[in-house]
């Protein structure tokens, strides 16, 4: 299948882009150690019944994977500026095969980031039963779907100059509203957050470690955002035929 060879080389390119790779994967790890190392012996953080390193491993997992997914936008934007996207359009490559390559590449980056954070967490004494690790990982991967599409949308709408600040700002804002950095226990932020896919990404980890589950609302919010953003990605790609 022709599209798969395209996907394979896209993956190869992502892992060869050393600076990009090291920074986008290394940043969450460094941040994690900076935040969690000093309080590595706090066993019950904020009365949640969860250790400090575990709480922040989950936080950074959602932040790091979200970042890894959206960063596909930066790669797309660069390809557009190089005129490569237009070159691809005059090949038989289908929209579906193009999106598949982009989404799988984003997931490969996100999974690598996730595994590195797990290793970092374990090194600070995090331990959970196997099913908890697996459930958390599964929910995070589902929760990342809207962000795979968001990366493509932003990549086809933004220029190389604007994509950095836009993705950085978007991720930071979503992280705060969604309770990545500190527990959001109620009020306005909590009400808004529940309608955002990033909230459920954070909850994917929290649900497992604190015993609360995703629930129907979580699935619906994630599914709705996925549908909307995939549709937008389709429109953004189809409209984006001009010279950049």
């Amino acid at each position, binding site marked *: 299948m*022709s599209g798969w060879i395209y996907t394979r080389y896209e993956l*190869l390119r992502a892992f060869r882009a050393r600076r990009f790779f090291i920074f986008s994967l290394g940043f969450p790890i460094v941040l994690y150690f900076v935040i969690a190392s000093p309080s590595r012996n706090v066993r019950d953080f904020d009365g949640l019944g969860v250790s400090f390193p575990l709480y922040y491993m989950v936080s950074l997992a959602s932040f790091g994977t979200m970042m890894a997914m959206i960063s596909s936008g930066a790669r797309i934007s660069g390809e557009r500026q190089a*005129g*490569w996207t*237009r070159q691809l359009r*005059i090949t*038989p490559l289908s929209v579906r095969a193009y999106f598949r390559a982009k989404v799988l590449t984003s997931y490969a980056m996100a999974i690598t980031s996730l595994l590195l954070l797990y290793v970092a967490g374990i090194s600070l004494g995090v331990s959970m039963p196997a099913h908890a690790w697996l459930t958390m990982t599964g929910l995070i991967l589902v929760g990342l779907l809207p962000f795979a599409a968001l990366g493509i949308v932003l990549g086809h709408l933004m220029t190389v100059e604007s994509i950095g600040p836009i993705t950085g700002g978007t991720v930071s804002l979503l992280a705060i509203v969604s309770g990545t950095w500190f527990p959001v226990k109620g009020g306005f932020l909590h009400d808004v957050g529940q309608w955002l896919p990033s909230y459920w990404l954070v909850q994917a980890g929290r649900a497992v470690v604190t015993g609360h589950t995703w629930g129907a609302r979580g699935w619906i919010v994630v599914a709705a955002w996925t549908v909307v953003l995939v549709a937008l990605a389709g429109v953004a790609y189809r409209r984006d*035929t001009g010279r950049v």
Partner: protein
Amino acid sequence: MKGEVELRGLVKSFRGPSGPVRAVRGIDVSIAAGETVALLGPNGAGKSTTIDMMLGLTRPDSGSVSLFGRPPREAVDAGAVGAMLQTGALIRDLSVRELITMVAALYRHPMDVEEVISLAGLTEAAPRRTQKLSGGQTQRVRFAVALVSDPDLLLLDEPTVAMDVEGRRDFWAAMRAYAARGKTVIFATHYLEEADANADRAVLMAHGRIVADGPTTEIKAQVGSRTIRATLPEVELGELSSLPGVSAVDRHGDAVILRCTDSDAAIRALLEAQPSLRDIEIAGAGLEEAFLELTGDEDPDAEEAGAPGQR
């Protein structure tokens, strides 16, 4: 006779900062299989927009494009069209061979990757990463990407930009080798020598219209003007431009250059009026002169059509 490439009444406008830009204003061309055609014109003439419409990258406001009896998208999907677009860098972090393999995999019946590499003159560069290539090598990789589907129609939008003299010579040799396989090649250029040396036929564009279309030799004859060049210091150009048969005058240092509609009348009058005239040369118009004559006249609403003649 219906050609393999048919452009019918193509019109395209863009929104510009000061109102609509009428990039292409009605183009009709028919190109037969196996022809090598130069799309010639200054910047802003509408060449790239025309090529974009031929590839289905830009939808015409009106008119139609037919490639081998099919709309552009279908011809592209069938691998019948290859193109080197005007703007173009390559994606990073792949070797030349990997990049060409990747693109080849998108087609049902691609050319052999090694054959493309050798045809584009990339044998030495094949193992190198795309971000480490020279400008000329990058262009050759883009040529290889255009060739990889073994297309019947090759569209090249100013392909030799960023190439040095030697690179250009090699590039055109490779292009002619490909055309010799019976392929149709259309290339846009504002280098007149390139059109003269490499095309059977030139389509001259200015202000979004076709101003001449035919064999390059015929276009030169069609204009029929000559130039007189001679050493003649300290003479007002105004005196010369009023001479019979002279259409334009110019001065380069001590030399004057007279563009003539009737060089016989002009030289007689000139010798009479300026007995000190020396180093006289009379030359037939090259494509360059033909080009200026056919495209240089000011268009009534040319201001919005980009900036013609920047080079």
